[in-house]
C-alpha cells in the first residue's frame, strides 16, 4: 500500500515534469521556460563550450539557418527528457547567434520563423491551452472569444478578412476559430521575440563558439540585400488613384489601410523593391519602420507566402480611393493603366 503510494507520487512528479518540459520545448519563449533555464543555473560559457550542450548548440545553429533559408523552423522528434532539455537550451543559443549577426533582417526573419513554428503547434492545442498562452501575452480571452482591443493589436487588418468590420463582434468580444486564435498569438509571439532581440547584446564569447556560422549568415544577408533591380519604374505612367495615394502619403496625410494596401501591391507588381516602397512611406505621420516593413513584406509575399495582387478598379472605387481620368474609362485594373500608358509613350 505504502509502496504503491510512493510509486504513484513518483509517477505524478515524473509525469508533471515531463509535460512541462515538453511544453517548454515546443514554446521555448514562454516565461516558465526562461525561469526554468535560469533555475538550472547553467553559465553562458557552459552552454557555449561544454560538451554536454553540444546537441543544444547544433540545434540552435540549425534554428537560425532554417529561419533564414526557409522561413520556418522544423520540429525534431523529441522522445525523452534529455531531448526536451536540449531543445529548450537550443533556443537561447539561437538567440545569441541571431543577435551576434548584428542584422535587423536576421532578427526579423528569425522572430517570424519562431512564431510560425509556434503557430503550427498552437493550432493543434485545445482552447484551454491557447487561453493560457494568450494570458502570457496579456491577451484577454474567454473561451474561443477574444477582447477586441487585443484583437486589434495583433490582427493583420489590411487583409479584408481580418478587418474588424467583418468579424462577429458582440459585447466587446470576437468569436474566432482555433487557427485564427493561433494566428493572432503568432503575431504576439513575433513581436515579443523581435523586441527582445532588438535590445539584447551577444555575450563576447559567442564569436569564439559560432564565428564561422555568424560569418556565413552575414555573407548570405548582404547577398540578399544587394539583389539587383529588374526594371526601372516610371511614375509618369501611374494611374491617378496611385498618384493620389503617393502624394497623400508623402505629404503626411494619414492614408487608410486599404490605401496602403493598394499602393504596396501596385508598386510590388511593378517590381519595386521593399526598400524603395518603404522610402515612400517614410514621411507618413505615424511611420514605424519595423511595422511598415513587416506589412510590406507581408503584402508582397516575402514572409506570408501570399503575393497579393493589386485590387481591381471596382474595389478601389468602393474604398473611395478612385479619382478617374480619361484613360480610366478604358481599363478595369490599375496595372492595365500603367501598361497602356507606357505603350502609348
Amino acid at each position, binding site marked *: 500500500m505504502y509502496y504503491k503510494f510512493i510509486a504513484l507520487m513518483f509517477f505524478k512528479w515524473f509525469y508533471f515534469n515531463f509535460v512541462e518540459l515538453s511544453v517548454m520545448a515546443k514554446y521555448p519563449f514562454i516565461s516558465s521556460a526562461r525561469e526554468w533555464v535560469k533555475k538550472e543555473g547553467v553559465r553562458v560559457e557552459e552552454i557555449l563550450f561544454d560538451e554536454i550542450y553540444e546537441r543544444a548548440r547544433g540545434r540552435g545553429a540549425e534554428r537560425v539557418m532554417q529561419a533564414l533559408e526557409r522561413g520556418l523552423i522544423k520540429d525534431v522528434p523529441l522522445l525523452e527528457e534529455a531531448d526536451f532539455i536540449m531543445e529548450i537550451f537550443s533556443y537561447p543559443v539561437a538567440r545569441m547567434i541571431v543577435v551576434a549577426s548584428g542584422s535587423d533582417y536576421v532578427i526579423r526573419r528569425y522572430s517570424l520563423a519562431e512564431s510560425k513554428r509556434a503557430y503550427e503547434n498552437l493550432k493543434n492545442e485545445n482552447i484551454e491551452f491557447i487561453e493560457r498562452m494568450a494570458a502570457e501575452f496579456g491577451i484577454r480571452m474567454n473561451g474561443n472569444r477574444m477582447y477586441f482591443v487585443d484583437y486589434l493589436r495583433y490582427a493583420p487588418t489590411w487583409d479584408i478578412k481580418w478587418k474588424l*468590420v467583418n*468579424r462577429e463582434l458582440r459585447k*466587446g468580444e470576437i468569436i474566432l476559430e482555433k487557427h485564427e486564435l493561433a494566428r493572432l498569438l503568432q503575431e504576439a509571439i513575433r513581436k515579443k521575440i523581435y523586441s527582445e532581440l532588438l535590445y539584447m547584446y551577444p555575450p563576447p564569447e559567442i564569436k569564439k563558439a559560432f564565428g564561422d556560422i555568424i560569418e556565413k549568415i552575414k555573407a548570405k544577408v548582404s547577398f540578399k540585400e544587394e539583389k539587383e533591380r529588374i526594371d526601372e519604374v516610371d511614375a509618369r505612367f501611374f494611374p491617378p488613384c496611385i498618384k493620389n495615394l503617393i502624394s497623400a502619403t508623402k505629404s503626411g496625410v494619414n492614408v487608410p*489601410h486599404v490605401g496602403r494596401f493598394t499602393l504596396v501591391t501596385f508598386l510590388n507588381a511593378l517590381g519595386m523593391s521593399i526598400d524603395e516602397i518603404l522610402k515612400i512611406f517614410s514621411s507618413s505621420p505615424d511611420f514605424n519602420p519595423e511595422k511598415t516593413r513587416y506589412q510590406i513584406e507581408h503584402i508582397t509575399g516575402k514572409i506570408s507566402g501570399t503575393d497579393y495582387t493589386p485590387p481591381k478598379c471596382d474595389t478601389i472605387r468602393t474604398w473611395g480611393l478612385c479619382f478617374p481620368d480619361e484613360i480610366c474609362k478604358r481599363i478595369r485594373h490599375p496595372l492595365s493603366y500603367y501598361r497602356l500608358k507606357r505603350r502609348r509613350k
Partner: protein
Amino acid sequence: MNFLKKKFTEYYSKADIEFPPRFDRREYAFIFFGEGGMHRHISFLSRDALISYLKKNSPAHSYYSSAYYRHPDAATMREKEWMGADLIFDLDADHIPDAIKLPYEKMLVMVKKEMEKLLSFLMDDFGFDKKDMRIYFSGGRGYHCHVSHPDVISLGSQERREIVDYVTARGLNIKGIVKEKSIPKEYFADKTIEIDPRKGGWSGRMARGIIDFLKEIKNMEKEKAIKKLMELEGIGEKTASSLYASLSDERIKRIEDGKIDQSREFKRIAIPLIKKLSVSLHSSADEPVTGDIKRLIRLPGSLHGKTGLRVTKVEINELQEFNPLRDAVVFGEEKVRVMIKKPFSIEMMENRFRVNEGVNEVPEYLAVFLMARGLATI
C-alpha cells in the same frame, strides 16, 4: 463683434466649465473674436488658471486636445510626447448628405439619430459601458461622443481606424455576411441567401435590418411601400413593385427564419441598407477624423463663437429629450434691438420666432445667436 465679446465675457465670469479628464496633460487652443488664427500649445497647471484665462480673453472658440501629453505646451508633436488619447466620434451635419439642406433645428435632429446608432454600436458590439462614454452637443451642427475607457486610450491610429470603419461599415465584405447558397433543383440551381438575426456583429445587424425593413414594407400600403423602396439608392420602380408583390405572408415567415430565396432583388437592397444601418461619420474617405490620435475638440462648457450656444454635456438617458435650442442656450430674455439682414425663422426656448428684415426687438439669446451666425447686426 463687441456685443458678442461682451456677452461671452459675461458668461465666462460665472460659467461652469467641465474640466476634461487628465486636465493638466492636455493642450488647449483658442480663437479670439476678430482674429483668424488659432492660439495653440497652451497648457494649464491649475483649474483656476484656465478659468481666469477664459474670463480675461473670452475666446470665440475654445478647444482642448483629445490626446494627453507629457509636455502639452511644447511647440512640436515630437516634443509634446504623446501619452494617449480619448476616442472621439465627431457627428456633424456636414457629414450627412441629406442633413445639409435642412433648416438648423431639423439638421440637429438628424445628427441625433446618427448618435443613437453610434451608441448602439458602442454598447452592443464594442461592449462599452455608459460610464465610459460622454456625449456633448458641439454648440454648432453636431454631437461628439468621447470614449475614455482605459483600454482605448493607448490605441494607435490604425486600431482607431478599424473602430471607425466598423461603425461606418467601410470595408464590409457583404458576401461574407449575406451568404448565397445554391440549392440544386430540377433544371437549374435555386439561389438562396441565408441570414441569421441572432448573430453578433454586422452579420446579425444586417439580418435584423433586412427582416425589420421588409416587415415594415409589407405592412405598408402599396404606394407608400414602393415609394419607400425607391428611396433606397439604385432601386427603380420596377424592382420596387416586383419586390413588394413578392412579399407574401409565407415569404415573410421564411425570411424571419433566415431564408431569402430568389435573391436577386434582395441583393440589390443589401448595399443601400448598409448605408442606412451604418453611422455617417465623414463625407470623404481621406478626412482625418476619429482615427486621428491628436486632434482638438471643443471644451465642454465653453461657447461656440458661430452660434453662441454652449458645448453641453448630454446624459445618454436624456439624449432623446435633449433640445439644443433650449438646453444649450445660456443667455437671457432681456430685449435687444438688432438689425436683421434677411427674414429668418427658428424655434428657440420653445418659442417660434419669425423675424423680418430691418430693426427687430428680440430676446438676448436670439440676438446672440443671430449675430454669431452673421444674420444680424446691432
